[in-house]
């Protein structure tokens, strides 16, 4: 009967169902290999194992939030490895630094999804079957149902049943009739929602996977006036998914016209950033140039890529003259910020330098730039007091010798390798160092040349990303919410009406309701339905119970 037999539909349902086993396989030693596989499969797709897997998944996700992760902060990972001699290598071995792509984490969610699919497929077929069949016929003893009502009427049985079908149909129940009774069911969208939700989870997973495999992500630092074209050589830093084809890069480029940063001028959060915007001119392959603004929360979307504004800083523009008085270098040198007030560190590398006596050499300058100078701190040296250009100062020292840029070893463009360089010194032997305001010039000793601090440009870093599958994941997410709402808010319930002639010219009307999910207010609903039916088949005083052959003594006690 419908109350005791559990269909697979109940197994995955998020609402409580009747107590029943979840289809444990037949134990015992006589299982063959196929039997064992079957048993394993049944275990895996059982609700209990799904529950354990869900719990494992949440547990497995925890360490990734406590141990630094390579994906988000490789520097911290290195720091952790350096500080923990025993724990570091152990963590590395078990994938603790990339939890969410580790074998054990993947194993849990793959098992979970296999279990999910193993659940959805049979349930979908079953649901199709339920939709094609009529509601199950009335159980023999309706008074055993959670809600039940009964009365006698003068109306003939077939009229009562016709009225019941009409009333239930008007209330959007699916009805079916068998001899002497009407069966009705409502709330099929609950199961539909449930299936949609679980399928949507799979769609989301496919979207995530596509995003991982086909993604590309690179960063590029652009100084005001400079440009960027979308190809591999232009990126400062680039990573991509296994299936991404680097030849597919391209399709657009842009020029940074102006970067503007606005900062809090007063109050306790003085110096906090309030607004960042980058005015750019971009072009698409074969298209016209267009103006656009990129700011926090508002990336540029072009040619299937998104360009995000991720950082900013200052680039002092300098002119370096060599020993001959010729311009050896002119241009902006991006300095990298070290704190919230944009105290920045940077270098100027001059590779084509000719000395006073005509010898070829190289120059290097390194130092600090502060946008707002309010005096040097005794402990921290040159420190900026505010992130905007209120009182910009450039503090440099100079070297000559081999920059090492031709050595073939990859070099950090923002750091000076002064191993094979010699620092310029004053007449009294102290290292040459000078603090400059825009327009100031630093003269190198003995007519070796000069550096002029012309002005300051701003730079911005852009993260250029393409991630296919995002729309799919979003569609999955929306479907998941819709399905979830259906499966939690819609109640599935059954109502039966039976009309039996009592052999004395009257008809006994029996109705009962069964909620198939927890929150169903079956009693209220049955009350309403019974009241409507009662209008069409009013009650008359009933015959003595003894006169009804199939009366259950239990029923009378309850009705007393």
């Amino acid at each position, binding site marked *: 009967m419908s109350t005791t037999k559990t269909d697979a539909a109940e197994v995955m349902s*998020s609402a409580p169902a009747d107590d029943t086993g979840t289809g444990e396989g037949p134990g015992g030693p006589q299982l063959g290999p196929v039997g064992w596989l079957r048993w394993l499969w049944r275990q895996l797709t059982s609700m209990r194992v799904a529950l354990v897997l869900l719990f494992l998944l949440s547990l497995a996700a925890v360490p990734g939030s406590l141990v630094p992760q390579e994906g988000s902060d490789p520097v*911290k990972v290195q720091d952790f490895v350096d500080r923990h001699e025993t724990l570091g290598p152990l963590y590395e071995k078990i994938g603790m630094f990339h939890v969410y792509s580790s074998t054990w984490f993947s194993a849990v969610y793959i098992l979970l999804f296999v279990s999910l699919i193993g659940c959805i497929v049979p349930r979908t077929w079953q649901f199709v079957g339920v939709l094609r069949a009529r509601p199950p016929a009335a159980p023999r003893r309706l008074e055993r149902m959670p809600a039940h009502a009964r009365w006698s009427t003068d109306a003939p049985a077939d009229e009562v049943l016709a009225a019941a079908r009409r009333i239930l149909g008007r209330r959007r129940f699916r009805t079916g009739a068998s001899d002497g009774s009407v069966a009705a069911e409502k709330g099929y969208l609950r199961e539909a929602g449930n299936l949609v939700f679980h399928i949507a989870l799979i769609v989301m997973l496919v979207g995530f996977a596509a995003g991982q495999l086909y993604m590309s992500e690179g960063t590029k630092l652009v100084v005001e006036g400079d440009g960027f074209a979308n190809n591999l050589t232009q990126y400062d830093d680039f990573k991509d998914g296994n299936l991404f084809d680097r030849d597919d890069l391209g399709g657009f480029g842009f020029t940074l016209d102006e970067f503007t940063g606005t900062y809090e001028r007063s109050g306790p959060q003085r110096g906090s950033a309030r607004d960042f915007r980058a005015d750019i001119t971009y072009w698409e392959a074969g298209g016209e140039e267009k103006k656009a603004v990129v700011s926090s929360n508002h990336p540029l979307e072009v040619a299937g890529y998104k360009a995000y504004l991720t950082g900013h800083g200052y680039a002092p523009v300098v002119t370096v003259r060599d020993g001959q008085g010729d311009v050896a270098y002119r241009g902006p040198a991006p300095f990298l910020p070290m704190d919230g007030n944009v105290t920045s560190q940077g270098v100027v590398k001059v590779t084509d330098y000719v000395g006073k006596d005509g010898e070829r050499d190289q120059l290097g300058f390194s130092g600090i730039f502060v946008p707002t100078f309010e005096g040097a701190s005794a402990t921290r040296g040159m420190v900026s007091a505010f992130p905007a250009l209120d009182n910009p100062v450039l503090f440099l020292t100079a070297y000559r010798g081999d920059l090492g840029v031709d050595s073939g070893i990859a070099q950090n463009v923002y750091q000076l390798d002064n191993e094979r360089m010699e620092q310029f010194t004053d007449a009294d032997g102290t290292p040459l160092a000078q603090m400059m305001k825009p327009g100031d010039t630093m003269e190198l000793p003995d007519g070796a040349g000069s550096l002029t601090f012309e002005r300051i440009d701003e730079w911005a870093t852009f993260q250029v990303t393409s991630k296919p599958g995002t729309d799919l994941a979003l569609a999955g997410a929306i479907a998941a919410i819709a399905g979830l709402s259906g499966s939690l808010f819609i109640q599935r319930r059954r109502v039966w009406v039976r009309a039996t002639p009592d052999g004395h010219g009257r008809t006994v009307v029996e109705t009962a309701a069964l909620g198939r999910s927890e929150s169903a207010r079956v009693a209220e609903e049955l009350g309403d339905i019974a009241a409507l039916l009662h209008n069409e088949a009013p009650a008359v005083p009933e015959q003595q119970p003894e006169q009804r052959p199939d009366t259950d003594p239990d029923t009378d006690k309850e009705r007393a």
Partner: protein
Amino acid sequence: MNIAAAANENMAQLSNYLVYSALAVYTLAFLAHIAEWAFGSRSRIAKQSAALTAQEQEAKASAAAPAVTVRAAGGTATLERPKVVTRNRGRDVADGLGAAGEDEKGELLGRIAISLTTLAFLIHLAGVVTRGLSVERAPWANMYEFSTTFSMVAVGVYLGLLAAGKKVRWIGLFLITTVLLDLGLALTVLYTESDQLVPALQSPWLIVHVACAIICGASFYVGAVSSLAYLVRDSYESRLEAGRTMRLSTVWRRLPSAATLDKLAYRVNAIVFPLWTFTIIAGAIWAEAAWGRYWGWDPKETWSFITWVVYAAYLHARATAGWKGRKAAYLALIAFACWIFNYYGVNMFVTGSLHSYAGVE
């Protein structure tokens, strides 16, 4: 410009005064609730054991009564509406009488507590609104603002349920205690001067994502208190069945029945779960716009995912034989603990989260 700034600072100051005042009135409500519980137990201590059995009898009788009442229309046999007989599975125990029990003084004090709570809520609401006005944005952009708004919404939901005639007054003492803790923590540890937003937070998603998170938190809180009360009341009822007594039974006796509490916890959690799902997805959409990826296993994201999975496990557990009842209730409590850790713990103990705008050093 300066005048506007001064007005804003006055507004922020006013907001602080209002929140402090609300805290004071909540304290009075707290004391009234304590007195309500105390008086409620006083009157019946002497006849406790007799009352327990009587209550059980009463419970059986009321459970057997029909859910739809029958009204006879004049005649003896003509029913205006057929009588619906209901059958319950499991234990049939009536709900307790509430904190005040049958004590009239207790009842009066309970009503006073509700009045005070309503007054405190209005002051609290004004405090949140003025905070929002002082910064001209949604007042939930740092942990201080989130906490004050959070407890305000929780009290608002509670008062709304009371106004709708739901029997949730028993929650009052738990709720006010939590609100006092939350506001105290907000005003001392989490306090941040009112100010504008950093660029990453300037998005309409701030309103949607965080408002949803607040509503979810407040509702999950109600679910968790119900689950906790369910666990205690359930042991009380099973001991009663076995003919034993339990410590503080005079308190547990006044709680709603285990079945009622269990149902309340399930309904609240089930209703809020889709909203929590939406909160996470809204966060992902915002992250995609602000940080260039929709999911990056940031600690906040990770813990909201963990919370989601544990609540999903809870909803599934209730459908699974052997996991219903107490085990499911434990899962609900673990899930809420995850939510709380995600809110306080991640901001305070886990470094390197992109959600570190909290204004807490």
